[in-house]
């Protein structure tokens, strides 16, 4: 699964730390998701989408 978190983060002028604090996860988790090394749970994916004001499909795509 691929994602555009890095793009949306840059668009919203957010650091990994900012996003991690908003989502209540560690910064390492954000790094792992951005590098496609960890697939977030549906709950976390929805939280990420909500944070950026987007739908999940716009952020996460299947390979």
């Amino acid at each position: 699964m691929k994602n555009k978190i890095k793009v949306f983060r840059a668009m919203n002028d957010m650091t990994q730390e900012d996003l991690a604090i908003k989502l209540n996860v560690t910064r390492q988790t954000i790094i792992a998701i951005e590098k496609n090394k960890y697939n977030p749970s549906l709950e976390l994916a929805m939280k990420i989408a909500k944070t950026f004001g987007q739908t999940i499909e716009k952020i996460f795509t299947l390979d």
Partner: protein
Amino acid sequence: MEYKIFRKVKILITAFISATVAMAVVYENMILALAGVLIGLLFLFLVKKKTKAVWVDERIKSVGGHAALLTHTILTSVIAFLSLVFIIGGRQTDKLQIEALGIVLSYIVLSSLAIYAMSYKYYLKKYSDEDEE
């Protein structure tokens, strides 16, 4: 307190503990070492409580789950193999202590498997609901 500050404080506490233990070794004073470690750990615990950072999230739990399963598999296999070696070896050499040790180890393996089976069943039940159609 932020995580970055916590990391600096953690380094300072580690340095304090190391210095105390080093001094205790030089002066051959066990109480000093024990006091230093206890004070350092207590301070670290209090600072960690004050820090507004997430320590455990879903990724950490997932990694922990994988690590626990791997640890259980390796440890159970190794102890089971050792118990077999001890039981057979003990019987062949007529050394009751070694055979007894093998039996104790095999019971430990059985207990470990029983606890794993029980916890597996518990979580299987927790995360599945067959009532809904």
